[in-house]
């Protein structure tokens, strides 16, 4: 994002402008909906209610948010070292494999409190490993990370396809999925956790991994802006010569950063495999990795921004599903369109109305000054 250096009060930048942008996005979406002869107001009502209106909806929204936080953070971390990691999709896929294999291995023998940390490590390792190769090639052979990560997404898909169809497929099952894990390897759902405390909420895929997402966000914030490693990463990202001058081993930083990035992306596997499906299956990443790019950039590569953006996308996914459910004439492609519009207005055109506001604001303050003078 081109950092605007004109002075506007914070609340306009972080509050008003995004608000106007999203309204614009919905205005245009509403127009498209009106075109196909549906009632836009109704549609927006359904979407918002469908995303936040009741506990189940909220549950789903937050469940998607969890995934986006992971992939968004992954992209952001790499971005601070000016590495453009398009490979979140593949890293998440392979991370999920790691989680799955571990659960398949241990679920009969160990309790959750032992499996969970191991699973987190396993997914982290697998995701990091999948990011390591592109990183290594970038650092030591100068091969462009964008290409290699794109390639590795395809390779990951091929690998998973092979493993699931030929090796992991549950005996006697028709569909390319592993066997279901024992309950000991299931992350508790939020509705279960609430139940422990006697609170009754409707079931949803939302599970313990949202806590992991929160932890990850805090960690990234501290790590990037308040540790020497983050300092090195950012310096490398801004000025490689300066980094070398400062005695930073740029190759190691590149590799380290990408591995961290891959690990973060891989936690989608925790949420999906251990938290929701309790088995390894095809295409569970469903594009979360790619959306992570938009999430991260819309969130200005900052954890707080990323959390907000993730929430927005979570709401879009869930609210969109709701909309498709309630209004049959609205197909899933219409939802895609709306998502595109939101990314366009809240992401790409984020600064569109800023100059106008600046003018308004400065006039406003001018007038006040003169008023004071008189």
């Amino acid at each position, binding site marked *: 994002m081109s950092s605007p250096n004109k002075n506007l009060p914070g609340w306009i930048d972080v509050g008003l402008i995004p608000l106007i942008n999203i309204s614009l996005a919905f205005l245009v979406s509403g127009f498209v909906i009106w075109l196909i002869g549906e009632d836009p107001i109704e549609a927006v009502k359904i979407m918002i209610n469908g995303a936040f209106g009741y506990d189940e909806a909220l549950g789903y929204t937050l469940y998607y948010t969890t995934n986006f936080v992971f992939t968004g953070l992954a992209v952001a971390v790499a971005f601070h070292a000016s590495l453009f990691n398009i490979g979140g999709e593949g890293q998440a896929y392979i991370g999920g494999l790691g989680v799955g294999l571990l659960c398949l291995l241990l679920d009969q023998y160990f309790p959750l409190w032992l499996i969970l940390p191991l699973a987190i490590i396993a997914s982290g390792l697998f995701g990091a490993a999948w990011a390591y190769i592109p990183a290594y090639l970038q650092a030591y052979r100068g091969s462009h990370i964008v290409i290699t990560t794109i390639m590795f997404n395809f390779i990951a898909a091929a690998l998973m396809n092979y493993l699931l169809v030929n090796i992991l497929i549950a005996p006697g099952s028709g569909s390319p999925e592993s066997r279901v894990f024992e309950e000991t390897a299931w992350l508790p759902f939020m509705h279960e956790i609430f139940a422990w405390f006697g609170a009754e909420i409707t079931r949803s895929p939302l599970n313990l991994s949202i806590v992991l997402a929160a932890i990850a966000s805090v960690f990234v914030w501290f790590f990037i802006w308040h540790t020497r490693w983050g300092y090195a990463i950012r310096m490398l990202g801004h000025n490689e010569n300066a980094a070398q001058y400062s005695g930073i081993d740029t190759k190691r930083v590149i590799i380290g950063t990408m591995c961290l990035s891959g690990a973060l992306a891989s936690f989608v596997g925790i949420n999906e495999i251990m938290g929701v499906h309790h088995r390894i299956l095809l295409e569970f990443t469903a*594009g979360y990795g790619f959306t992570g790019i938009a999430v991260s950039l819309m969130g200005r590569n900052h954890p707080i921004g990323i959390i907000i953006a993730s929430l927005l996308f979570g709401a879009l996914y869930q609210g969109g599903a709701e909309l498709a459910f309630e209004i049959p004439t609205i197909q899933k492609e219409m939802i895609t369109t709306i998502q595109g519009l939101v990314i366009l207005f809240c992401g790409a055109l984020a600064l569109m109305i800023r100059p106008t506001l600046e003018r308004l604001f400065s006039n406003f303050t001018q007038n006040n000054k003169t008023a004071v003078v008189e």
Partner: protein
Amino acid sequence: DEIKPAVVFDMGGKFDKSFNEGVYNGVEKFKSETGIEYKEFEVTNPSQREQAIRKMAQRGSNPIIGVGFAQEAAIAKVAQEYPDIHFTIIDAVVDLPNVQSVVFKEHEGSFLVGVLAAMASETNTVGFIGGMDIPLIQKFACGYAQGAKYVKGDASVLSNMTGTTPSAWNDPGKGSELAKSQFDRGADVIFAAAGGTGIGVYQAAKDAGKLAIGVDSNQNHLQPGTMLTSMTKQVDVAAYNTFKTAMEGTWKPGILSLGLAENGVDWALDENNKSLITDEMTAKVKEAREEIVAGKISVHDYMEDNSCPSL
């Protein structure tokens, strides 16, 4: 009182040129005949399957159709939660008192079109193009190969898969290239079980003046004159029947395994392709069909043991 039917399509979407679309046609037929509206949903990621099915159940929809093997787990779960709602799952088996599982013996149908392909082939080489390498598709391939080898023991069968990502079901460009590559390798009849990718295969066949075989629904009309036939799979009928029987109160749980005997799978003959089908072929297929129904020929089901002797 009127029933409130619902259907949950899988990730391919109801226009996937494959079984989702089949189901869609079936329920549309039902709607137009009876005027009864149905609820529908297209899932866009794995966790929406359970969500959508449960939502349908909550809204009191009954019966609910789940399309595709991938919905097996979701149906199983929700069916237990709602024991008095009727569920029908297509292409998978869920063993519950309130679930009807409709599975097709695609291998038998594929066997027949394999026979036709081999007989129509002058090069004695036939091709198969699948979407993704998954058991269901292997099932098609395997039956097809067995059929081809049944008429011509020395027939060789080329097999390609389109890809490993969902786009493999929507890549006509790659489809036509795969077809061309198989033509180059001597094939002159190609059976495509690859959703939208098939469109490219049929086009390539037309452009090259070779033959192609459609899948799932009768696709002969797509390229009249170069579509040898289509391996039809009566998903539409199955879906239609689910609603129909439910309406008449005759819906029954259990496993419906639809093969040639039940006309669940078949090969399509219409004016678009009758010029291509000789009487000899018709006779041969008729014979093969009877022997399969009579159990004289046992067509291998890939999904039995996830392996294929004839490929």
